């Protein structure tokens, strides 16, 4: 199948409209007559709402209605994770959320809502309302390990010690293995911080009645799943809801949870189907949507002098926040990756997912792997140093070898990916020269360079259902529209799907149009986009459906050309007789004839579902070169190069864009991003774009993205996941580079000035003479 479009840097199909500014996002589509909803959030980290006096707030001119947790007569607990529903109860997500609760479990939990004619009236009423809530305050706990101790406040009865789940893995016998003489032990505690997605379009949805149903238009990654969850949250038939997803201004996993769609739909229903809009302000996006899990690791490795691993153990505590959302899946993914990245015969591992009175952690680009990759790769660097081996060589020696097969997931490493990526990256950034040049520096400003890798797979088989459906409809001129369950959220799913369809059906790309906005009434069922499944999973249903359509086309061609189907093909929009290459008719002529013929008129369309039962490793590496200004405790990233093996690259321009975005999120994760809470009150401290330090234009060097293309045998188009992998190796690479530059190897994130100051002081790199007098003075 020689491809005309696959592999080409084709322009995004929606780029033109976005550059013109005429593309419509949720807020652009909502009629100005919509009533405004503002959510009333709890101002205690744990407590019971005793009463909410709404009388004063109701007097504010423009207020239409005020709802409180006491208006929830039937409590329908519902799961919020964007997971495909499971018919097996044991696999179903934990349903522990209410649209409004009288038992807030974190500062920012939803306990009420104001509905007003405009945003000013709504915020006025909200400020009054916030002062008229009576709480019974309860003690709270913010740290995962503290939450597990006896006597810690219990968030959910069904989960003693706040442990949502605890899983273990055991291979061989660590106990025995570590008795081998001459082993070198390397042990470390590693800790990652909570961060937020910061998509520039806040979550927003609006709802209105239509017949006996409710339509919810929402900025979501998972419209079909959202419809199911709204049904569960309101206790109504799922078919009573229709979810429409317009263009989305970034999701990164936050919009893979069902956020305020249920509350918005419920309010519209209470108001007889009036049009109501819930537009989450940035400050509430930070604390009342989803964040990334902060995970603490303790990893120990025993190595032989030649650098091979004898035994390894890992423990991980995953801070899940107040509600389950994605539950144990994030921690489990990390634990599952540990024995695969650096295989070893003797491994003991366990991980806990723990409830705390903090904002809810859910899916965020990488789904546990950025955290795990930081711990694994920081530990790997420390292991190499412990035995005095070059860190890159140490990795090449221990990383998953070619041919590795993972029984549970049936994943297999078909190619020498790691070495190919390391070689290519080293060559681009000039790693080997720079490592020598930066070997031992003494000045105030020093440079360092390092590389890191990561483990990642594609989609969620076999842990959960992987299914994709596609419908392609041909018009009279031979052009087609296609619809997919996989949603466009900026990653380019529509464009790559169009490239696939054009090549597989055999028509010019200009004749292929996505129906981009999913509408659960019309779009074939699909679970949306997450777990970097987009290109991989949609490829299966797209190819299958495209081939079905082609079959019908060639049968129709037989009718009009009299040639047997096996001597016909559709190439670049023309029906061709393969025996002599003659072009018999254009696809336009065929489509027109087939539709309007009085002999067997037929509408050329195809629709099919493909259930994916395979997975694919998607690995890559990151090289980071840094300059550390020790006195100023500042790190400047000089160069960053990511090389990824995501199989056949469908669109190099869009693929590079995914890598750049991942690198950027990784840089912020490494150097400056961190959500903080006040320990005394549980109140968030920096929930806005000023105090939460997401990278700006001036915090990035040029980002370099490159690829190693090993065609993935299991994949419909040889592709593997790419959305999330680029985030994973960046933070460890930067940490290791800082270590190479200064000799100070830090085990926590972010590597901000505060952290560097403490670590450089402990390491003696910073020793202010006046510091002793200062302590003296303070001691007095």
């Amino acid at each position, binding site marked *: 199948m020689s491809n005309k479009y696959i592999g080409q840097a084709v*322009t*995004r199909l*929606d*780029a*033109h409209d*976005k*550059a*013109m*500014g*005429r*593309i419509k*996002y949720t*807020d652009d589509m909502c009629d*100005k007559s919509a009533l405004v909803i503002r959510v009333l959030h709890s101002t205690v980290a744990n407590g019971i709402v005793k009463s909410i006096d709404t009388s004063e707030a109701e007097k504010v001119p423009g207020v239409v209605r005020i709802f409180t947790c006491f208006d929830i007569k039937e409590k329908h607990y519902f799961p919020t994770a964007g997971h495909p529903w499971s018919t097996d109860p044991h696999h179903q997500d934990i349903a522990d959320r209410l649209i409004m609760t009288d038992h807030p479990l974190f500062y920012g939990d939803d306990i009420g809502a104001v509905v007003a004619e405009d945003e000013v009236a709504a915020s006025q009423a909200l400020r009054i309302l916030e002062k008229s809530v009576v709480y019974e305050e309860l003690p709270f706990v913010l740290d995962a390990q503290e939450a597990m101790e006896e006597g810690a406040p219990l968030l959910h009865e069904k989960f003693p010690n706040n442990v949502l789940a605890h899983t273990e893995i055991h291979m061989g016998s660590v106990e025995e293995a570590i008795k081998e003489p001459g082993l070198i032990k390397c042990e470390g505690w590693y800790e990652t911080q909570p961060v937020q*997605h*910061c*998509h*520039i*379009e*806040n979550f927003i949805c609006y709802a209105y009645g239509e017949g006996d149903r409710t339509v919810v238009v929402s900025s979501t990654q998972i419209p079909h799943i959202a419809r199911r969850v709204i049904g569960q949250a309101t206790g109504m038939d799922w078919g009573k809801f229709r979810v429409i997803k317009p*263009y*989305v*201004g*970034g999701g990164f996993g936050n919009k893979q949870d069902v956020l305020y769609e249920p509350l918005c739909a419920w309010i519209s229903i209470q108001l007889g189907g009036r049009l109501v809009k819930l*537009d989450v302000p*940035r400050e509430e996006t930070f604390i009342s949507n989803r964040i990334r899990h902060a995970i603490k690791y303790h990893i120990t490795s025993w190595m032989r002098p030649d650098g091979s691993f004898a035994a390894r153990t890992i423990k991980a505590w995953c801070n899940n926040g107040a509600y389950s959302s994605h539950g144990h899946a994030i921690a489990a993914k990390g634990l599952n990756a540990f024995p695969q990245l650096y295989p070893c015969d003797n491994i003991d591992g366990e991980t806990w997912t723990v409830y705390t009175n903090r904002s809810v952690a859910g899916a965020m680009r990488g789904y546990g792997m950025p955290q795990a990759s930081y711990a694994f790769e920081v530990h790997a660097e420390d292991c190499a140093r412990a035995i005095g081996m070059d860190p890159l060589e140490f990795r090449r020696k221990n990383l998953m070898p070619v041919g590795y097969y993972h029984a549970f997931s049936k994943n297999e490493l078909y190619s020498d990916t790691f070495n190919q990526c390391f070689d290519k990256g080293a060559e*681009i*950034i000039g790693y080997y020269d720079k490592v020598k040049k930066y070997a031992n520096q003494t*000045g*105030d*400003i020093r*440079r360092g360079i390092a590389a890191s890798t990561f483990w990642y797979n594609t989609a969620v088989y076999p842990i959960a259902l992987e299914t994709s459906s596609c419908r392609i409809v041909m018009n009279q001129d031979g052009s087609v529209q296609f619809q997919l369950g996989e949603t466009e*959220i*900026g*990653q*380019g799913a529509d464009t790559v799907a169009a490239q696939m369809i054009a090549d597989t059906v055999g028509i010019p790309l200009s004749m292929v149009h996505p129906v981009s906005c999913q509408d659960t009434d019309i779009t074939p069922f699909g679970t949306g986009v997450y777990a970097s499944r987009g290109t991989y999973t949609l490829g299966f249903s797209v190819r299958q459906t495209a081939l079905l359509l082609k079959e019908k086309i060639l049968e129709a061609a037989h009718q009009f050309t009299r040639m047997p189907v096996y001597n016909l093909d559709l190439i670049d929009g023309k029906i061709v007789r393969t025996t002599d290459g003659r072009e018999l008719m254009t696809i336009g002529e065929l489509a027109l004839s087939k539709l309007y013929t009085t002999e067997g008129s037929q509408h050329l369309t195809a629709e099919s579902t493909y259930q994916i039962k395979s997975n694919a490793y998607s690995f890559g590496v990151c090289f980071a070169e840094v*300059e550390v200004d020790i*006195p100023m405790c500042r790190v400047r990233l000089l*160069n960053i*190069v990511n090389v990824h093996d995501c199989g056949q690259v469908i669109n190099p*321009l*869009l693929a*590079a*864009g995914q890598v*750049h*975005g991942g*690198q*950027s999120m990784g*840089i912020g994760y490494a150097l400056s991003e961190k959500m903080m809470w006040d320990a005394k009150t549980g109140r968030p401290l920096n929930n*806005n*774009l000023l105090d939460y330090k*997401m990278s*700006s*234009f*001036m915090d*990035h*060097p*040029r*980002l*370099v993205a490159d690829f190693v293309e090993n065609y993935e045998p299991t994949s419909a188009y040889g592709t593997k996941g790419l959305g999330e992998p680029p985030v994973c190796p960046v933070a460890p690479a930067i940490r290791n580079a800082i270590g190479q530059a200064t000799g100070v190897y830090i085990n926590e994130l972010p590597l901000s000035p505060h952290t560097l100051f403490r670590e450089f002081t402990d390491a003696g790199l910073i020793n202010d003479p006046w510091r002793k007098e200062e302590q003296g003075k303070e001691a007095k």
Partner: protein
Amino acid sequence: MAKQYKVVHCTVNGKEIEQVVDVRSSLTDMLRNDLHLTSVKKGCEVGECGACTVIINGEGFNSCIYLAVWAEGKEIWTLEGLTGPGGELSDIQQAFVDEGAIQCGFCTPGFIMTSWEIVNSGKEYTDDELRKALSGHLCRCTGYENIFRAVKKTMLRHLGKYEEAELVNSQGITEYPEPMPFK
């Protein structure tokens, strides 16, 4: 307190506008709700993210923290104004399309307006100056890389430096001068 209204006279995208506004309205409100220019986006409404940037008398402003009544007598440009009568894209818009500088597209309108100001300034910005000029916009999808390329290329083309423009994409790794250690 009775509501206060005022007629704002200004030119928006080259067209004379007389718009009655509630004096409490931000310029973003007027542009989006009254003039239906929905390319102006709301990302934070506190002047941080830049998604609401419009050009006022030649300079980029966050329209979310700019009162509509202050637009009196001003000349305002939004992304809708950059597109030609027949839908033709200006060269900076086309560069954003060609360089893959657009992913989700939510920060794009703001970015293009500031870039339009840069490339029409006639000045040649160094790389660092370019980053600083564009630093009033936050983006989570692109890591700013392809945006940097699109703007630098268009700037160089405006200055007639076409070969140099074509080299922009290949400049991956940057070699920095030795740090001047403060000894």
